[in-house]
């Protein structure tokens, strides 16, 4: 074995070891969810179980309206992903392809918007949605639309910052060529530029999906009386009681919360890496 292949073996082993350490908490979470109650609370924890059971999952799934909350969360997260991608794309084109007054100011504003602790904004937002609800009941408090809107708004600043790199990476010459061919600017935007930055949109959508899926600050603030519009995380909060460590239930709830995000990740993974790579070619 020469030095080079020994080096390679070392690198491979390290990568696998790091992977094991990184994934271990997730493995432990899933494992604990499948363990019988007595074994989870055991003073002698073991990294396997001889008696896997669905007991904890059954307990979590028996939360009234679980399916409904799951669908609500999915609707919110997917709507935010789609809307956010559209708005982010247009705004990113504006700030990369054009020079105009206040461009830098706007970019700094997008940064500042991310620096505010969200909790501090819930009160002004609450009253705004309440008042909006008087004129347009469809987007008032207690509606999924209010959650979609607020998640959309808070996903934009980071999305635009990320997307800027992706748009900049597309050579201007491609657009110019299309323009010479007589394509209108609107057409170029949708049929030339959009497909080219699609991987980048996939990458940014990961962030908007996670943020929308995991949120419970806004969900618990805006959804007051309409229990049918609760989201999954706020419903599963029932299991996270600091005083009563029902670890089996907590782990099953955590697993059910993590799996959809993981599926979304795996779905966009390939695009994610190539998309992020595109951003560097600036």
């Amino acid at each position, binding site marked *: 074995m020469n030095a080079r292949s020994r080096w390679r073996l070392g690198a491979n082993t390290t990568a696998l070891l790091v992977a094991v350490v990184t994934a271990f908490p997730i493995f432990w979470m899933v494992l604990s969810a499948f363990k019988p109650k007595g074994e989870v609370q055991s003073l002698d924890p073991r990294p396997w179980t001889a008696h896997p059971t669905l007991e904890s999952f059954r307990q979590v799934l028996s939360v009234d309206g679980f399916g409904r909350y799951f669908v609500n969360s999915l609707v919110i997260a997917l709507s935010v992903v789609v809307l956010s991608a559209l708005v982010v794309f247009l705004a990113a084109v504006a700030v990369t392809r054009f020079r105009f007054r206040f461009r830098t100011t706007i970019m700094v504003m997008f940064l500042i918007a991310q620096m505010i602790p969200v909790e501090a904004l819930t009160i002004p937002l609450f009253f705004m949605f309440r008042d909006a609800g008087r004129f347009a009941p469809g987007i008032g*408090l207690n509606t999924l639309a209010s959650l979609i809107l607020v998640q959309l708004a808070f996903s934009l600043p980071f999305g635009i910052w990320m997307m800027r790199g992706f748009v900049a990476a597309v050579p201007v010459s491609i657009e110019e060529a299309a323009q010479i061919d007589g394509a209108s600017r609107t057409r170029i935007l949708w049929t030339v530029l959009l497909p080219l930055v699609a991987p980048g949109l996939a990458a940014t959508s990961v962030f908007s999906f996670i943020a929308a899926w995991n949120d419970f600050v806004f969900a*618990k603030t805006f959804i007051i009386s309409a*229990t049918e519009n609760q989201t999954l995380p706020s419903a599963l*909060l029932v299991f996270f009681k600091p005083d009563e460590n029902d670890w089996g239930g907590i782990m099953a709830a955590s697993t059910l919360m993590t799996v959809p995000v993981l599926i979304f990740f795996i779905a966009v993974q390939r695009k994610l890496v190539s998309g992020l790579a595109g951003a560097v070619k600036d």
Partner: protein
Amino acid sequence: MRIVRRTTAAAVLAATCLAAAACSPGTAVPAGEKAADDKSGTLQVWLYNEAGNAAKEAVVAKAVTEFQSAHQGVTVNVSYIDTDASARAAKMKGAFNDPSSAPDLVEFGNTDLPGYVAAGGLAEIGADLDKWADKGDLDPAIAKTAVLDGKTYGLPWWVGVRALYYRTDLFTEAGLAAPTSYDELVAATRKIHAAHSDTFGIAIGGKYTFGALPFVWDAGGDIAAKDGDKFKAAINSAASQTGVKRYTDLFDEAGCPAQQCADLTGGKTVDLFAAGKAAMAILPNSSRSKVDAGAAKDKYAVVPLPGAKAGSIAPAFAGGNNLGVMKAAKHRTLAVQFAQLLAGPGYQEQMYDAMGNLPTLKSVNAKVAAKDAFLKPFTDTIAAGTRFVPLDQAWAQIDAQAVIPTMLQQVVTGKADVAKASGDAATQITSAFAAR
């Protein structure tokens, strides 16, 4: 110099806005004293989602059926709200800030009452309760926890008081009887720990406010004392300091080692005792089922928590939940009637059977105590006199800022002595009362 100009413009704009109501933060107009009073339709009720909620739901469902058949055209819709403190607070604030989302009837922790009243959330129901047949049966000390400035805002539904659980097997082995004074309690921790080095003398916690307060009250101290119509911090008085010292002195090798116990909440001490890890614990009667599910099953008994004087009982905190009618209720009369049904003798007894929560009606208390000898130390504790946190919305702030736990933890971890820690706590308590 565009920056300067723009800043000036912004300042002018802000100043204009300050003057104009249009830019002020949103507020909700509090509902008038005369709330809407539909006699039909859907009565919205929010109750706490507690551990073992299925049993509670079953009892409440029976009450709903009974109520609906007595009131034609009325549907009762009960939602069980998350008891996690921040989620619950968000929900209640939402109901205050958006009256149209508010329910008619809510269950709430009795320490939350002053804050909810200040928020304009609860309706005064004193006059309604005066007409209630069972009013005279309410325990007066407990009834007082729902009264603020002479007005009644809640109907006490159940209470929980804490007493001393101890392991009979360990005590017998050590040749000890149940402690009847603080000194005997300390001696017991020493003797048992000497024989079983892996066992804690007593399970207590640095975050267990309601485990610590009985020691303070027993010593003659308090969190704050009423001085005229204003509260004044009293946690640093000589008597309070004695009590704090007695509680924190238990965090030693024999009692509950600081390393293990400094960050425990009351709930965690239940786990320790249930797992057989501790010889004593200060727990409510509702912890019984949890203890019975653990290693300590059939090996324990309960006595009132002893005070410093031999044979005395340390005053317990009268924690519990009330039923309250929202100011924004749309069915005020129905809400009061449903509360009276739930808190009436029949359903109080059933709630005890289902959840183990102590009734607030004296007659029901006597009845359940007679049927269950286990309850005697708890009813004795209530009879000996219970205490309460300052009935003022400042308590919400003192509680949220973890003033008492921080004080206890500073002493327990040796970061500060009792005088310094209680002095700091007093400063914060004073500022909380002054904040309004």
